[in-house]
């Protein structure tokens, strides 16, 4: 499978997710933790349950696999500078890695000692001059780029923040923590502006005395009116992973939930979500039992996905090209797949 030929040039065919098909597969020998496509969609990147990040050329086959080695723990979040020249990696070794995206022999350009505890999330702003991160020290930190200097700390989360983003207006941040707390922050002052308890994306397991919740992926809609969060709901047994996946569409202006997309028949978690230019969502899921993952295509407001693609193993991450014609999915079995959302050529 690793010698699958390079994907054909993108056709002009209309988007038809019901004809989604795999156009490239890349194999690693360790479970993957996340994936991203660079802004030009030249490369597919994945974190793994070793300490490395891996890069494949989208049209280069498995032989194009290149190792980004430098972290001393897992990486579960990746982001790029807007021009795609720099890759930023959030390490569970407390550090943010800075890399040359296209380097032939990648080495970290910089390793920023960013948090006391895991760095769970990194995100670059639209002009590439700022980066925001969150970590297990319960802090959100704003960094300047390219010098990597700390500009601001945001304090207020009492449990681990799982994800943080720039609002498209670049004046505010959004963050989401283990307990389901959504917070809005003013970048200039560092102050918390608003907070909402999305308790339906958290559960306290009475039997095991533990909290389960948090965002596994988070994005803003292009217009900044909706925060979209992938995670879980209906926790009944945290330690066995018995819960349902949830995609929350959160009205950012009213600061309240707008749609809660979930499938009660599916036990598990959603690990990734993207908005499609045509207005629907693509999300990836991992089941509680069994091995089959899922890609759901969902129209906001509808009760059920309008199409589901079954994955050979559970999905650990999802990304989409800017034109919405291709998506990348990282799997537990080490497979990174590129799907084309049109009919086969």
């Amino acid at each position, binding site marked *: 499978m690793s010698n699958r030929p390079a994907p054909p040039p993108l056709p002009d065919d209309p988007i038809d997710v019901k004809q989604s098909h795999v156009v490239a597969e890349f194999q690693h020998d360790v479970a993957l933790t996340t994936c991203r496509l660079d802004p030009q969609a030249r490369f597919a990147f994945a974190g793994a*349950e070793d300490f490395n990040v891996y890069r494949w050329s989208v049209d280069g086959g498995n032989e194009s696999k290149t190792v980004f080695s430098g972290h*001393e723990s897992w990486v579960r979040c990746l982001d790029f500078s807007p021009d795609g020249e720099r890759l930023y990696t959030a390490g569970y070794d407390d550090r943010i890695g800075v890399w040359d995206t296209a380097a032939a022999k990648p080495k970290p350009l910089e390793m920023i000692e960013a948090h006391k505890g895991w760095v769970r999330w990194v995100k670059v702003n639209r002009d590439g001059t700022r980066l925001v991160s969150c970590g297990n020290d319960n802090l959100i930190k704003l960094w300047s780029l390219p010098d990597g200097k700390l500009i601001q700390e945001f304090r207020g989360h009492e449990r681990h923040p799982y994800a943080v983003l720039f609002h498209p207006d670049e004046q505010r941040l959004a963050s989401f923590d283990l307990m389901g707390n959504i917070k809005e922050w003013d970048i200039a002052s560092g102050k918390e502006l608003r907070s909402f308890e999305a308790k339906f994306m958290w559960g306290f397991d009475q039997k*095991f005395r533990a909290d389960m919740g948090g965002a596994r992926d988070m994005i803003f809609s292009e217009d900044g009116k909706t925060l979209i969060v992938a995670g879980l709901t209906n926790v009944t047994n*945290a*330690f066995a992973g018995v819960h349902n996946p949830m995609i929350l569409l959160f009205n950012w202006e009213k600061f309240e939930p707008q749609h809660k997309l979930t499938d009660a028949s599916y036990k598990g978690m959603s690990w990734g979500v993207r908005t499609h230019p045509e207005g629907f969502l693509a999300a990836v899921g*991992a089941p509680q039992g069994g091995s089959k993952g899922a890609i759901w295509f969902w129209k906001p407001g509808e009760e059920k996905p309008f199409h589901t693609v079954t994955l050979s193993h559970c999905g650990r991450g999802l990304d989409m090209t800017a034109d919405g014609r291709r998506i990348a999915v990282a799997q537990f079995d080490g497979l990174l797949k590129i799907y084309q959302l049109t009919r086969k050529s």
Partner: protein
Amino acid sequence: MRRDTGCHRIDHALSRRGFLAGTAAGAAAMGGVLTPAQADQLQSGQKRLLQVFLQGGFSQFETFDPKPGTKYGGPFRQIETSVPGMMICELLPHMATRMHKLSIIRSINLRTNDHGKGRLFMEKGRNVGEFPYVGSVAAKYLAPPNPTLPTYLHITTRGLSDNTNAFLEAQHAQMKLPGTKAPDNLARPDKLTVEAARRRADFRAQLNERFSGGKGQSAFTETFDSSFEMAERLMSQKGLLEAEPSGKDLERYGSHPFGRRCVLARNLLQNGATVVKVTHHGYDTHAENFNFHLEQLGEFDQTFCMLLDDIEATGMLDSTLIMVYSEFGRTPKINQRYGRDHWGASVSMALGGAGIKPGVTVGATNKEGTEVSDREVDAGHLFHTYFSALGIDPTADHNVPGKSIPIGDPAKSSIKELLV
């Protein structure tokens, strides 16, 4: 070894009779100052046992046998400890500074992935048969003649009801304390006057005397009497159970339930308890093993170390055997939910205090932690070791009339390199 990927309902069932197995116990809070009771204990040379049970099966990778950078190593790093060359997981930074007071066993093979079987093996030192728990055996042979507290106390809000004393006398059975409060129904009912209660006790004593005259009936009356005696001891120590920890204690131990339980454990030990077991729940991490170990060990590490420090500060470390253990470990393989499942083939634990040589690492697992590679032991060897450390010959027979029952499994022996 075949993986067990799930738990059975009985393993997680709340105890319905746990409290009835005993009735409860009590303690006073004294911090680092020796009370008269403590002074008496130290002078008498009494030894005692503290069991810290991490229920559910903590991960050996995320505690005492880290394998960072290997196939199954997970995301955490290892850190140096106060013992040169001894590395433990970064989730235990407080323990790392105190490992010169403790020792590690990394080579336990329990040959079971079942909660119940693993727990019973770790407690009884035998994997089949009706034998008493280590706590009941320690209570029988270590408790003073007239203890001020029930001799085997278990602070937990969960747990199965067990026949912990097996063939030993009923007063050595485990008594469960439901967290840091007095057990329900401990106090004399308001409608029952002191005089009426005294008359009731006298009447019970008369009946016992007549009943125990019958052949073979003494064991029944003894069991019955034992329940009343334990309840009376507890009633006299009710204040100890209900005492609110000081602000300083809450700051040091943490204000969470496990912190409060460990403050109570300390107070019980300092006030004459012989065996105290305190359970920290929440290690059965079939999903999100790493996030949950972060949370659970974050609570455990500092709290346990404060308890260790206080035991040492009051001069009781040399006379108190300390166990940190689970019913098994967790799989090397990380499942699709970022969990680790049940695993008994390569398990770790920590020991310290009375009779234990500190700073020792016993055994090893292979590079990926999938099997024991050196000095394999099981719960039978551990059982011998506990009692050798406490000065009780585990090869001797129990004092049970008419029967020859060795304290430890005769096929096993102590881990000599751990003993002082």
